[in-house]
C-alpha cells in the first residue's frame, strides 16, 4: 500500500466528518461514568483528551494526563463486539391465528459503523469472532452484514496497561492487518500529529479528502519506536507453550477448587471479553397471547442455567464453570477455531471484582502440574 502519511488533529476531526458524509456512524472511545467506553462520536471533542487509565487486578481508574493525548490509555470495559454482535436483538416475531401461526423474520438492517481507535488486540478479537460467526458451516447474517460494512481506524498503543499481555498472545501491540487506516499518535512539545498507514482502497479514498503530507522517514521511525516501547511495558505475561495440553491434562487440578473459593461467578470476565460470544434466547408473548417474539441476548458460561438439562445443571459448581471458561479460551478454542480465544487484552483481570488473574492461575497450574490420570 501507499507510504505512511501525516495528519494533524484537525485532519483526524475532518476524517470523522468525511466518514459521516460517506454514511458511516463513527463510534469510538469517550468518557462516561468514569470509564472509557465505545460510543457514537461527533468530533474529536468526544474523545478522552488528556485521559489515561490505571489498571490492575480488580482496579480501573481514570487519571488526567499532563498532555492532550487523544489515545493515551488502554482498553476499557467495552469492546467492539457490542456493535458487531449486539447484546440483545429480536430474531423474529410470530403472529397467531387460531391454532395456526406465522413466523416473521426480523428485517435485516445493515448499519455502517466506522470504528475509531481499534487496538491491535481488538483487531485480533474481531478476526476470532469472524471464525465463530461467518467462517464456519453456518453464518450469522446480522454479524456478517455489520462486519462487511465496517470501516476500521486502528490505533497503535502508545502505552501498555497494567493487565495487558498482547505480546504473550502474539496479538500486538503493533497493528498488522485488517484495518482501513492505522494511526500512531505522536505527541511532543512541538507536535501533535498522527502517522497514518493505509490498509485498503477505501482507506486511501478517505485520506484523499484530508489535508495530509508524506511522512518523513524519522517520523515513521518514531512511530515504530513508540510501539516497540509499548511492547516492553506489558503489565502481565503468559507462557503459552503447550498450553492446550497443559490444561487438558489438568482438568482435575486442585487449583480449580482454590479459584472457586474466590470466583463470584458474576460473569464480568465474559461480558468484557472481546471474543466471548455465547448467547441465549428468550421467548416472549404479549398480553393477548397472539403475538410472540424470540430474542437473542448475550449469555455467560458462568450463569447457573447455562448448562441446564432436565434434571439439573451440568456445571453446577463454580469450579466447573471457571474451568470451562479458562480452558475454552486457551485450549479448546484451538481445537474449535484454530487459534487461541485469548488476545491478551487483560479486561478479564481488570474487571474481576476479586481480582482473579487469568495469567497467574495458568502459571500456578503450570508450576504444580499434575498429570490427569487416564479416564476409564
Amino acid at each position: 500500500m501507499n507510504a505512511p502519511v501525516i495528519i494533524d488533529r484537525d485532519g483526524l476531526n475532518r476524517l470523522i466528518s468525511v466518514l459521516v458524509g460517506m454514511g458511516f456512524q463513527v463510534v469510538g472511545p469517550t468518557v462516561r461514568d468514569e470509564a472509557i467506553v465505545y460510543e457514537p462520536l461527533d468530533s474529536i471533542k468526544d474523545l478522552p483528551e488528556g485521559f489515561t487509565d490505571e489498571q490492575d487486578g480488580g482496579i480501573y481508574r481514570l487519571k488526567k494526563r499532563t498532555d492532550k493525548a487523544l489515545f493515551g490509555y488502554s482498553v476499557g470495559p467495552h469492546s467492539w463486539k457490542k456493535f458487531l454482535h449486539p447484546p440483545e436483538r429480536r430474531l423474529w416475531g410470530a403472529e397467531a391465528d387460531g391454532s395456526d401461526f406465522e413466523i416473521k423474520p426480523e428485517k435485516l438492517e445493515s448499519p455502517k459503523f466506522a470504528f475509531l481507535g481499534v487496538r491491535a488486540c481488538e483487531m485480533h478479537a474481531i478476526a476470532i469472532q469472524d471464525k465463530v460467526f461467518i467462517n464456519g458451516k453456518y453464518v450469522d447474517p446480522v454479524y456478517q452484514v455489520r462486519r462487511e460494512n465496517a470501516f476500521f481506524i486502528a490505533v497503535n498503543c502508545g502505552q501498555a496497561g497494567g493487565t495487558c499481555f498482547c505480546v504473550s498472545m502474539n496479538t500486538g501491540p503493533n497493528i498488522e492487518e485488517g484495518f482501513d487506516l492505522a494511526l500512531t499518535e505522536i505527541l511532543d512539545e512541538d507536535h501533535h500529529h498522527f502517522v497514518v498507514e493505509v490498509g485498503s482502497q477505501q482507506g486511501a479514498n478517505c485520506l484523499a479528502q484530508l489535508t495530509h503530507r508524506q511522512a518523513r522517514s524519522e517520523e515513521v521511525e518514531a512511530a515504530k519506536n513508540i510501539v516497540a516501547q509499548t511492547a516492553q511495558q506489558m503489565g502481565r505475561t503468559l507462557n503459552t507453550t503447550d498450553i492446550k495440553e497443559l490444561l487438558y491434562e489438568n482438568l482435575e487440578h486442585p487449583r480449580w477448587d482454590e479459584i472457586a473459593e474466590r470466583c463470584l461467578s458474576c460473569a464480568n470476565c465474559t461480558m468484557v471479553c472481546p471474543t466471548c460470544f455465547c448467547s441465549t434466547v428468550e421467548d416472549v408473548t404479549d398480553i393477548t397471547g397472539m403475538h410472540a417474539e424470540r430474542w437473542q441476548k448475550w449469555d455467560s458460561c458462568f450463569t447457573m442455567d447455562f448448562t441446564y438439562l432436565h434434571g439439573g445443571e451440568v456445571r453446577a459448581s463454580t469450579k466447573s464453570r471457571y474451568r470451562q471458561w479458562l480452558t475454552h479460551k486457551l485450549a479448546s478454542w484451538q481445537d474449535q477455531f484454530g487459534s487461541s480465544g485469548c488476545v491478551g487484552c487483560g479486561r478479564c483481570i481488570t474487571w474481576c471484582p476479586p481480582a482473579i488473574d487469568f495469567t497467574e492461575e495458568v502459571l500456578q497450574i503450570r508450576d504444580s502440574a499434575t498429570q490427569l490420570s487416564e479416564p476409564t
Partner: protein
Amino acid sequence: MAGQMQPPGVNPMIPQTYRVNKFIRETHDTFSLDVVPKGGTEPMVFQPGQFNMLYAFGVGEVPISISGPKPGTQGMIHTIRDVGVVTRALHHLKKGQTLGLRGPFGSSWPIEESKGQDVVIMAGGIGLAPLRPALYALLEQRDQYGEIVLLYGVRNPEDLLFTKEFETWRGKYGVQVKLTVDTADREWRGNVGVVNTLIQRVTFDPLNTVAMICGPEVMMRFAVSELKRYGVPEQQLYVTLERNLKCAVGFCGHCQFGPAFICKDGAVFRYDKVKPFFGIREI
C-alpha cells in the same frame, strides 16, 4: 456425517412452520409428532441420528431427535418425553396444528461405514428414538450387514417404546432384540437389570462390530466399558451426548463438551474422539 452448507441468504435461526400430520401416543409420558412442512411437499432429507429444533408458539424451542418416518410414511417423526414446559406444550398439539421447526442439525450414525459388519444397537429409555431411523436404514439393506442386535433397557415395562415393531424386527429381519427393565411389574416375564447384562445373551463378532449407543451418560459409560471388555475396538463405538442447546449451529456456546460443539460436531460421536472428556464430572 452430514455436512451440507447453509444456503446463501438463509438465516439458520429462523424456524419454518410445519403442521402436525399425526399425533401418536407412545407411552404414559411419551408421544410422537409426525410433521410435514406447511404448504410444501418436498421430501425431507435427514440422516439417521440428526435432530430438529421444535418450537411451540410463545413457549420456546427444544432439540428433538428425528425418530422416523416409518417405512411407508411421509412425515418426519419426533418422539418426545413430556418433561418440561416446551415438551408439555408440544404434547398439547393436535393434528393439523402448527409448530416451528429448524433443522436437521448434527452428525449421524455410521450407516454406510458399518457395511459388512455386525451392528449392536444399545438404547436406554428414550435413547431408542434417534436409533430407530438407523435401524430402518440398516434393515432397508439387510443383506449388507451381518448380525443386527438391539439391546434396549428402560426403567419400567410401561416405558418401552415402539413395542409393536419388535416382532417385525425379530421375525422379518432376524434382529436379535433383547429387552430389560430396572424394575419389573407383575406382568413382566423378561430380564431385570441394566442393559449391559444383555450383551452376554446375544451373538456377534466383537472385532467386526459397530456399536451405536444412546441413553443416559452413565448407561453409555457402562455400555462402552462392557463392549470394550468383549473386544469391540474403541473406533467402532459410537455414542451420543446431550447438553443444553439454544442455537443448534455453533453460535450460542451452550452445548460445549471439551473441544466439541454437540450441536454441530455431534450429537453422535465416535467414542475415541470424546474419550478424554467422557468421564470428567461437570465438563
